[in-house]
């Protein structure tokens, strides 16, 4: 155990943990939104994320970036980054909506059990992973460096790097936009209505299918953004990239209280920071053991997560 490291490098670890947590938080929003509306764990969400990373990769290629190139500068860099971000968000959103239409909608309309839908979700997830395994010949892919990584400032031993600052700030903005959308827009109200009571919402004239499509779309957009930020910081992806991140993001959603947007956000940041601290104190090998033990303890005390499961009031 190395508490001295945590003390000495506290701010550096916290900053890096927040950047990782921002990615977790963005992915976990997708889990939480779908659960809030359908009471379904969308297991294919990790692959929605994975497809986002590959789309960003393809977009960078279309923008003429090669892995051996030097990082871009000025407006060219901003444009390339934006195109990659939008490509990842769109691809993930489209995937999420398609998954819903193909794998869930019919089951839902025919009154299938939650278990059948869950298995369908797992099936979609495995098919997508295997398809990408074959397409990519099981090899990891590197993402070109579009933006040079530089240290903006050094505070109390913490080196603040530009890409991580962008991730934290942009993730915050996206979550703010999502929150506004859910609380203010017509579709947002629909989502909240359906999550409270599906039947009553239908009677009130809410178009359930549309609301569900919008839910998957919003979750997909967030996962796509997470995918772009992930690839910007870590610069690599593979067919199995969604697996570990998906589990962590799902955990973050449960930690915060699944179905609860603020919970997912908070859970993501907490888990990111917690994993980084435990890696420092107990060694990286113990990261999962300690973080998940803490999760179990939190759930023992608060079974519905830190912010409560109730979609209805808490999520806005």
């Amino acid at each position, binding site marked *: 155990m190395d508490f001295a490291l945590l003390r*000495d*490098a506290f701010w550096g670890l916290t900053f890096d943990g927040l950047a990782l947590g921002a990615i977790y938080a963005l992915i976990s929003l997708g889990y939480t939104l779908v659960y809030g509306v359908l009471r379904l764990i969308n297991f294919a969400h990790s692959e929605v994320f994975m497809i986002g990373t590959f789309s960003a990769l393809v977009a960078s290629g279309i923008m003429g970036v090669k892995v051996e190139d030097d990082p871009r500068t000025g407006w060219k860099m901003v444009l390339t980054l934006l195109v990659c971000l939008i490509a990842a968000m769109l691809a993930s959103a489209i995937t999420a909506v398609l998954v819903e239409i193909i794998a869930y909608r019919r089951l839902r309309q025919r009154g299938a059990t939650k278990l059948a839908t869950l298995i369908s979700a797992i099936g979609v997830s495995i098919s997508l992973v295997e398809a990408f395994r074959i397409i990519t010949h099981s090899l990891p892919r590197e993402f070109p460096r579009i933006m040079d990584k530089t240290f903006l400032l050094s505070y109390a031993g913490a080196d603040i790097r530009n890409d991580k600052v962008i991730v934290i700030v942009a993730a915050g903005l996206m979550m703010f936009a999502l929150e506004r959308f859910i609380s203010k827009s017509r579709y947002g109200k629909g989502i909240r209505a359906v999550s409270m009571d599906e039947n009553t919402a239908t009677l009130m004239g809410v178009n359930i299918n549309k609301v569900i499509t919008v839910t998957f779309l919003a979750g997909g957009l967030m996962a796509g953004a997470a995918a772009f930020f992930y690839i910007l910081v870590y610069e*690599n992806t593979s067919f199995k990239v969604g697996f570990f991140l998906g589990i962590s993001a799902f955990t973050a959603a449960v930690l915060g209280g699944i179905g609860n947007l603020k919970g997912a956000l908070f859970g993501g940041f907490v888990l990111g920071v917690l*994993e*980084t601290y435990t*890696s420092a104190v107990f060694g990286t*090998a113990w990261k999962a053991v300690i973080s998940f033990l803490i999760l179990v303890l939190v759930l023992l005390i608060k079974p519905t997560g830190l912010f409560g499961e109730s979609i209805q009031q808490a999520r806005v």
Partner: protein
Amino acid sequence: MKKIISAIATVALVVGTAVAVAPAANAACSGKLKIAYQGPLTGPEAALGINELNGVKFALSKFLTANKGANVDPTVYEVDDQGDPAVAGPIAPKVAAEECVVALVGPAYSGASKVSLPVYLSAGLSIITPSATNPTLPTFGKSIFHRAVLTDDYQGPAAARLIVSKNKNAKVFLVNDASDYAVGLQKTVDITLAGRVVGKDVTPTGTTDFTATIAKIKKSKATAVFYSGYFSQAAVFVKQLRDSGSKITFASGDGTLDDQFVKLARKSAEGALLTAPAIPFETASPKLAKEMTAMGMKPGVYTTESYDAANFFLEAIKAGNTDRASINKYVSTKSSKGLSKTLKFDAEGEVSGADVNGFIVKNGKLVLLGAIK
């Protein structure tokens, strides 16, 4: 952790069923004799397996050109274990049950070897591994086990010497990926470096964020880091290390010695010191390397050793041995002059009289530094 548990479970399962599934050592083969290759042919480690498979394919095609009437199948019997013990476990009994498979080059990886070897032992199937370097393997394969390279008992100390020769007052931080291979290799590096080791961390396969490890390395004031593991994760690690502003020496073993490592890590790989008990095909025989490339097969790490291993088996067949038992006896007692070294196995199936080579990444290429003294 999941991998370890599943590996233990598979060992138990495989050992339990091996006797029932495997055929008698002398089961008759009615068709052409087959040479098998086992290693990762898909999955993130596939690059290494393909290097080795190419060596076997090349040896086989050269043999058949020289010996037209030989009763040997021109296609290599490919066994894809993805380098993963959990995948290797269920496959090994199927390979053992294939009567015409009379010899096997591989398994490529130590973890996969541990679950496969007991099965091949009970089936009497002779194996020569070109790259599994964990020192404990003879206890799993016993009489059918042969290894064409030096073990980690040699590679680790050589890696340690390489680091010190490039970095006189080296203070070294050790990182491993928790795999059988990585833990074994790190142990020997650790023993040789002794007082120079200033810290350690374990980053299990699948780790994507190395923040905490890098914080530890910085705090330890290490001047070098030795990463024990495979290239795909090594590339992610070295990239994050360089992005954190650290310029300390990066060193790693044969798991990282792969073109893919340089391709994935790009500029961050520059200056990386790597070791392997292997010799590049182009160095061992420029003429054959050219010929191989012309056939559309690119030589890589461990191609030479696989080529030698396959040739030893083919010599056994040429000498009139057509079943598993006699082929095993031949390779266990005779010797074969290979490109990398003369293969002559001792009672444990280990080879001697070879070197561990050092490499450095320079201008995006793996450059041979020569034998590590």
